[in-house]
């Protein structure tokens, strides 16, 4: 029973927003000590696991080009690509961004997140679509469009990234299962997620499209 103290430390620590790295180390040392390991054995276990899981640092190699891709106009071209849909409603702009983001997430490429892409690119396009139709965008509508853009951003990123063969999520699953004695391979782990990712994109796309259409009707309809 006392061995669960580490689990309690992790849950409480994360919930109380303490420093994540400190929580993990404290939980590790406390669990090891109450579980009958000495300091040397604990350090050896940490070292062994860390070295065995060096593959999780693959993002470092990827970063060798992500910054430079950005430098060479990746965001600008992504914006241009989304801008290609004609007569788009705000909901369609958000949906198109979702499609692009999911595809790029599957290749482990981010366009810069909310600060780097949604605020400077997606929102002006969505608001532009509303203004083209109604002249001025309603405040309540804009607030919801922001919420939906951020939602699309998160949904497609979470469920898209797991399609990348060698993403950090799958690597952690692989190492967790290995400790329990189950061998898995990265390509199969990614394959399992294909229906999930497609379904997530469809659900969010349809939901946001109709929500925007509904808002569009209820907000501007009464003014006419």
């Amino acid at each position, binding site marked *: 029973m006392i*061995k669960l103290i580490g*689990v309690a430390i*992790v849950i409480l620590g994360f*919930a109380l927003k303490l420093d994540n*790295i400190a929580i*993990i*180390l404290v939980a*590790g040392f406390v669990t*090891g000590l109450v*579980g*009958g*390991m000495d300091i040397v054995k604990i*350090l*050896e276990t940490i*070292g062994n*696991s*860390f*070295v065995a*899981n*060096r*593959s*999780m640092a*693959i*993002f*470092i190699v990827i970063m*060798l*080009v*992500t*910054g*430079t*891709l950005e*430098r*060479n106009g*990746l965001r600008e*071209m992504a914006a241009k690509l989304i801008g290609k849909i004609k007569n788009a409603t705000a909901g369609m702009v958000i949906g198109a961004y979702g499609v692009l983001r999911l595809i*790029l997430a*599957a290749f482990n*490429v981010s366009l810069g997140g*909310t600060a780097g892409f*949604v605020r400077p690119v997606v929102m002006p396009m969505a608001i532009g679509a509303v203004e083209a139709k109604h002249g001025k965008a309603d405040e309540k509508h804009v*607030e919801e469009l922001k*919420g*939906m853009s*951020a939602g699309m951003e998160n949904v497609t990123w*979470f469920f898209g990234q*797991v399609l*990348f*063969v*060698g993403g950090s999520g*799958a690597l952690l699953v692989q190492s*967790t*299962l290995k400790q*329990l004695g*189950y061998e898995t391979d*990265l*390509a199969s*782990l990614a394959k*399992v997620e294909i229906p*999930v990712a497609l379904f997530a994109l469809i659900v969010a796309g349809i939901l*946001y499209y109709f929500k925007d259409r509904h808002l569009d009707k209820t907000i501007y309809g009464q003014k006419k």
Partner: protein
Amino acid sequence: MDPKIAIGTKLLECLYILMGLVAGYAGIKTLFEKEHKAKIGTAVFWCSLAVILVFGRWLPKLWSGILVIVMAIPAVLGQVKAGPNGGPSKEYTEAQAKKIGYKIFIPTLMMGTMAIIFAVFTKVSPLVGVGVGVIIAAILLMIFSKNNKPKTFLDDSKRMLDIVGPLSMLPMLLAALGAIFTTAGVGQVIADLVSKVIPQGNMTVGIIVYAVAMAIFTMIMGNAFAAITVITVGIGGPFVLALGANPTVIGMLALTCGYCGTLSTPMAANFNIVPVAILDMKGRYNVIKNQLIVAGIMLTFQICYMLIAK
């Protein structure tokens, strides 16, 4: 090198060395940045990571463990910070976009493509494919523009590492915590405890409890990576996998069930609360409110998927 070691392992080791060199460059460059606010801490962090990555294979376990702690100390003390921003100007990226155009997507998609090609056609780890993809992407970028010199890539990667910071080590640290849990026998204790509440031996109940527990614990902890190490050992292993379920399907989907929790909690502030500020929104929970239905549908979908494909 020892000829008995498989070529795939050797290539993977080369990849780790490359990672280490990039991390080491970030650490050493920090030392030369005059305006940097936490030079020593930041340099210690990236340089010790570099040593573990490059020499991990040959270092005694104890040394690696000590190096992990040395790396973690400045991070815990808040002494790992980003350097002065050397990002490109908007004018420059716009000019480059005009010049290079849609061709920029070729190097962008190279890493993922090579990972798949390696997974399908070779016995070597797809991660080596990612590394090869990075090299091809870098070569293409150098062909596209003469301004992209080797130093440009290194400086840009340093800038990106500064942005992700020490939290990027979370998966590796959580894996280490999982290893300690396993060695100390924590899984057995949780399993004994849970078996008093739910019946062992019923896979359907096990799957539903595992999936829902992943979502709920992620909501409490705000982090699916932290949840999966604990919940898989305690519930996923003894109540689902031990009964013969497919570990690839169950283990992987459990993670994305956790993501449904991430979408529904203010604890995942980076994703759900910070954007509210970035987008100047009025309602603090308006991002979460737009995600709740999606999260509920996705959790249900995945539980059904697990039950069918188990």
